[in-house]
């Protein structure tokens, strides 16, 4: 057996992954019970739309920092990056850095103007001095496309993970996630969603830290000794770049999607409305960047720890994608109980991200499309809240159905799709409407529509879909991620169309927007 050559510890050969795990169940039900208690508490405080969408703007900077980190650190980063590092070495670390560098961009360009100019969605900011209806329809298009592809990725990932961890069927797992998520969002709104994120961020950071410390304790608390053990067993190649960045254009394109996509993710942007003012928004990104960076530094240790202590062959044997590296490492170091704990943390992680995504999608449907387009901004508070809850249920059902439909699909391309759409549809329109006084309604709307359509089209024509999934010989478009083309295209469209359609009233309106952006009123 190959496993024996790699010399893994005995525990890895007899993994209990895939069997119902009592500890995982116990932790999972404890998490569900605690979060439902939070939801009950939050539901009594959720009477207005401001409370439903923005937690009454009472979340502190520190709390929002944890919630932002919770929203962002999905199971993909915890399981996926640990898996990539454990099977490819250095190449996995390219993702660890890539997922973090979007945060400074959010801080420098987006967070404070967004808080000062908007109410519930980023479309509030874009529409601040432009025409309401076209801007909101364009914004909702990009938001819903982003949210739906992100949701599919999370749901499909959840189904697979939970089936492996708990031994229940894929469909049951998806419906369980859907039901719990709907309970949080429907009754507890943003208050419950925020606290679920905070609890999840604590669990994920705590679990990963304990795991990393257990790994390091085997190597005299010296990461370099751990890397050296990996290099001496699997060759110095694991510390050097390999085949992942074989085509530089692909790497730059993915990098652009990650860097500018973060600043266009609707569930992240919505978080800035939950804090009292722009200074709190600023401080919360600072905390979030610290927490997320710390988490990604730990993925160095977790990934190489799994490589040395579990072994790449064992990891690939359990899951071809390497996604079970962190749970396997937990089992090796802490036995079945620790495996159960890490499994429950991963489940909580997915559940919380799904809740945040659903709420932001519901806000686009109800606040942007229904209230501000269909009803022309005239809807009673009661009606707004009812519509928001109906939209939440619709999105929850859609998420469950899509999760079941896309069973067994490769989910990686959907996450890259979500980031590419966010970076191409939302980010250029948002930045230009905030910072460029000559941007106009036709310019911004054409950028949002073209950004969405072009990224969807180019992903469909990319090798990921054409070659990997549809099994065609070649792909029309060479890049796996379209951001390198679609982000400049979207900026260029906004600028050219704006210059061709100058508007004196929209230009004059910029003075008010500029004042509000800085002073908040």
């Amino acid at each position: 057996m190959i496993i024996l050559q790699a010399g893994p510890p005995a525990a890895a050969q007899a993994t209990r992954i895939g069997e119902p795990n009592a500890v995982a169940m116990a932790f999972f039900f404890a998490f569900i019970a605690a979060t439902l208690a939070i939801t009950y508490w939050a539901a009594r405080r959720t009477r207005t739309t401001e409370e439903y969408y923005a937690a009454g703007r009472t979340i502190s900077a520190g709390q929002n920092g944890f919630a932002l980190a919770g929203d962002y650190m999905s199971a993909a980063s915890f399981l996926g990056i640990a898996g990539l590092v454990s099977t490819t070495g250095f190449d996995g670390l390219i993702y660890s850095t890539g997922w973090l560098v979007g945060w400074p961009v959010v801080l420098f360009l987006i967070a404070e103007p967004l808080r000062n100019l908007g109410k519930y969605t980023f479309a509030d900011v874009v529409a601040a001095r432009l025409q309401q209806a076209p801007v909101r329809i364009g914004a909702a298009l990009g938001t819903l496309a982003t949210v739906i592809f992100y949701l599919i990725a999370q749901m499909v990932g959840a189904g697979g993970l939970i089936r492996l961890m708990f031994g229940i069927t894929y469909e049951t797992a998806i419906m369980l996630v859907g039901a719990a998520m709907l309970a949080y969002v429907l009754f507890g709104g943003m208050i419950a969603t925020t606290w679920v994120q905070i609890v999840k961020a604590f669990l994920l950071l705590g679990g990963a830290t304990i795991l990393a410390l257990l790994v390091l304790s085997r190597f005299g608390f010296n990461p370099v000794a751990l890397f050296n053990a990996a290099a001496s067993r699997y060759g110095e190649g694991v510390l050097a770049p390999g085949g992942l960045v074989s085509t530089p254009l692909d790497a730059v394109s993915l990098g652009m999607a990650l860097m500018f996509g973060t600043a266009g993710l609707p569930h992240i942007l919505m978080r800035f409305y939950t804090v009292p003012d722009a200074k709190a928004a600023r401080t919360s990104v600072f905390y979030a960047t610290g927490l997320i960076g710390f988490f990604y530094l730990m993925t160095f240790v977790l990934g190489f720890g799994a490589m040395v202590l579990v072994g790449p062959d064992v990891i690939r044997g359990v899951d071809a994608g390497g996604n079970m590296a962190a749970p396997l490492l937990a089992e090796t170091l802490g036995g079945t109980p620790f495996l159960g704990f890490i499994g429950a943390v991963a489940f909580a992680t997915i559940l919380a991200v799904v809740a945040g995504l659903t709420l932001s999608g519901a806000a686009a449907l109800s606040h942007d499309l229904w209230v501000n387009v269909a009803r022309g901004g005239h809807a009673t508070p009661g009606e707004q809240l009812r519509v928001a809850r109906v939209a939440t249920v619709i999105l929850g059902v859609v998420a469950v159905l899509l999760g079941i439909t896309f069973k067994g699909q490769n989910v990686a391309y959907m996450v890259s799709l979500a980031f590419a759409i966010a970076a191409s549809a939302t980010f250029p329109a948002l930045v230009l409407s905030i910072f460029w006084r000559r941007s106009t309604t036709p310019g911004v709307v054409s950028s949002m529509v073209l950004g969405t359509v072009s990224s969807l089209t180019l992903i469909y024509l990319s090798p990921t879909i054409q070659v990997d999934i549809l099994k065609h010989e070649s792909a029309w478009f060479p890049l796996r991620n379209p951001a390198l083309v679609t982000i400049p295209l979207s900026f260029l469209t906004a600028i050219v169309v704006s210059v061709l359609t100058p508007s004196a009233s929209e230009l004059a309106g910029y003075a008010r927007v500029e004042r509000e952006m800085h002073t908040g009123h």
Partner: protein
Amino acid sequence: MPDPVPAHRFGALVFQSDYCLTPTDSVTARDSDLQRLARRRWRVAITLTAAVIAVYFGFILLIAFNKPFMGSLITPGLSVGILLGALVIVATWLLTWYYVRWANEHYDRALDEIRKAGRP
């Protein structure tokens, strides 16, 4: 109401905007002070954004075009690539820290002065 903003606070740049009417309009004058701050914030924001882009894409391009350098070992167990990867994360922290410090110390203070100047 007296002109709330001392005239000496304005440089030549202040009244060039296309919607400012007259220098004696106090609302416009306050906005012009704000515009100057807005331009300053934009310069800081775009410089720091360019710095993040340079750091991250510098890292990616080194991986793409100079794999042997990234794979060379500083000490056994520590390659240049791993060290630079960790430094990208540290650089991200430092840049966000720098911006927050600048905003807390300079931007907020200037904004406070503009707000105060707005009240009689």
